């Protein structure tokens, strides 16, 4: 059985999906310079507007349901990808009380997201993946394989992560945060912008008139370092090769690459090297994190939606904030341009050397 993305919805610091795509094509970053999390050190963050993160999460999933051909999600498997789960809520209690007494243990881990959604929508079963920044990209790996053996006809993938002190201050401790808007792939890039996001996609085994196919997924491990990628880019190349093999498409058939492109020194150098080594036809590449920031566990799902929109619109996203590319051997467009886009690769890389690439394409 094949796997089709039939409906989706998202929220990020750039707004809903339509607003996000407008921002991407107009090179308008949605990053704000903020000192909420670190009083003395303003940093660039991707902040969303909401009163309650979980209410917004349910609204996004409700949008997907209402746009779908389903009456409810009773015959749908939910797969969540998240890196922090309910951390923000735990922090709030701990910083106020200076003890754990008011922390609800069931609302701290990743499963708070599946439980919140399960209680409202009544899915037939749930899974939750937490492989840091590849979490929701790995949801595609699981979903495609489950559908290939006809285990499920409907799977909802939800990538969701809220900003919290742990991630903002933690990335600062690693010296990879940018104090300004991030500038992926630039020679003089400063670092990344931590961001929050919610992305939900309904995958089905039957195509509809507006479907995008999940053609292939590949995953690998660097086995090199906990936070730095393999400088030879072997892990990144391996996952992309596996995804292309799984999709049964040739390297020359790729029309656009949505890069992981966090804006950190290590990621961008290695990812560019991987793309340079693998794609001799030099397809256009850009990182939309220059607009959204890095939404961590939600990034794979959010960038899957961006990839679907790119295929449907036939417009290549430019590399926002690109001045001078560090690696001139990859094709980073400075402006958006029209092109027949049939197949897109989306990359996600994470702590622990966890790598995932997903191939999306037009329905044949």
């Amino acid at each position, binding site marked *: 059985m094949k796997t089709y993305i039939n409906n989706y919805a998202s929220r990020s610091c750039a707004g809903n999906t339509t607003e996000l795509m407008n921002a991407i094509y107009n090179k308008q970053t949605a990053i704000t310079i903020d000192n909420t999390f670190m009083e003395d050190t303003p940093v660039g963050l991707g902040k969303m507007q909401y009163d309650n993160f979980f209410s917004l999460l349910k609204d996004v999933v409700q949008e997907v349901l209402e746009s779908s051909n389903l009456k409810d999600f009773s015959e749908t498997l939910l797969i969540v990808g998240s*890196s922090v*789960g309910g*951390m923000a809520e*735990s*922090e709030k209690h*701990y*910083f106020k009380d*200076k*003890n*754990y*007494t008011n*922390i609800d*243990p*069931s609302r*701290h*881990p*990743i*499963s708070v997201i*599946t*439980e919140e959604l399960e209680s409202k929508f009544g899915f037939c079963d*749930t*899974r*939750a*993946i*937490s*492989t*840091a920044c590849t979490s929701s990209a*790995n949801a595609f*790996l*699981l979903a495609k*394989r*489950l559908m*290939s*053996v*006809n*285990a499920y006809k409907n799977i909802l993938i939800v990538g969701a992560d809220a900003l919290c*002190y*742990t991630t903002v*201050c*933690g*990335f*600062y*401790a*690693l*010296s990879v945060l940018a104090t300004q808007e991030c500038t992926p792939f630039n020679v003089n890039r400063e670092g990344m912008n931590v961001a929050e996001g919610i992305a939900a996609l309904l995958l089905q085994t039957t195509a509809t008139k507006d479907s995008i196919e999940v053609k292939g997924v590949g*995953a*690998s*491990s*660097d*086995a*090199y370092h*906990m*936070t730095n990628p393999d400088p030879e880019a072997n*892990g990144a190349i*391996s996952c992309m090769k596996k995804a292309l093999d799984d999709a049964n498409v040739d390297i020359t058939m790729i029309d656009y690459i949505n890069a992981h492109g966090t804006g950190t020194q290590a990621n961008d150098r290695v990812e560019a090297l991987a793309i340079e080594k693998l794609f001799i036809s030099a397809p256009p590449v850009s990182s939309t994190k220059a607009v959204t920031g890095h939404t961590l566990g939600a990034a794979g799902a959010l960038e899957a939606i961006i990839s679907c929109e790119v295929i449907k619109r036939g417009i290549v996203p430019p590399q926002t904030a690109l001045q001078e590319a560090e690696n001139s051997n990859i094709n980073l467009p400075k402006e958006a341009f029209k092109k027949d886009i049939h197949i897109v690769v989306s990359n996600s890389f*994470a*702590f*622990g*050397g*966890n790598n995932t690439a997903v191939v999306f394409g037009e329905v044949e």
Partner: protein
Amino acid sequence: MKVAVNIISAKKIYAKQKIDDLNEKSIVPKMMMRRRLTRNAKIMLYLADSCGFRNGKIIYGSAFGELGATVGITDAILNKTPISPTLFQNSVYNSAPSYFSLLNSDKDEIITLSNGMKTSKDVLKCAALQSLISGESIFCVVTESLDIDRIDEVNNCAHYLEAGAGVILQIAENENGAKELQSSIDEGVIASLDDLISLVNMYEEDKELKLFIEL
């Protein structure tokens, strides 16, 4: 959809607080690396070693992830002291299998699941799927390490603060003799381990165990 899997090896371990002997010096001879490991990583490495797993696809699970590292970070933020970069890199849920990957040069697919008290059920389901797709044997393992200061402020269910269970399984050629998983939990072990503990208990009674798993 149900599939039948052969259980190749299985092991469990738990303790009221810190598990004493995880054979760390033998499994991780380099002291600098050993010192960086999280408790979940040490438990996972012990279970992998005990099950005879060296390299390949892993499905790892933990309901609460790396609580020790998370607490260290939030304490540093609260007290306005610097956060250790090692603590932050260790705080992600996939730290334990990532350390396994580093130590064993395992470049294969490693997926980490965290779904509350059904974590070990999900780990078994995903491992069965991975074996069905690849035909390979899969190491599935769940660990929890809740032994942090003042855990009593939030813990009223887990008697054993460190626990883990690991299983190597492989898709069976047929369903002949396959059994359903019989729940036989060990009282006081956190429920996120229930299905794997039950499986280990069945395996200890039947070393030729073949099991049905619903995908």
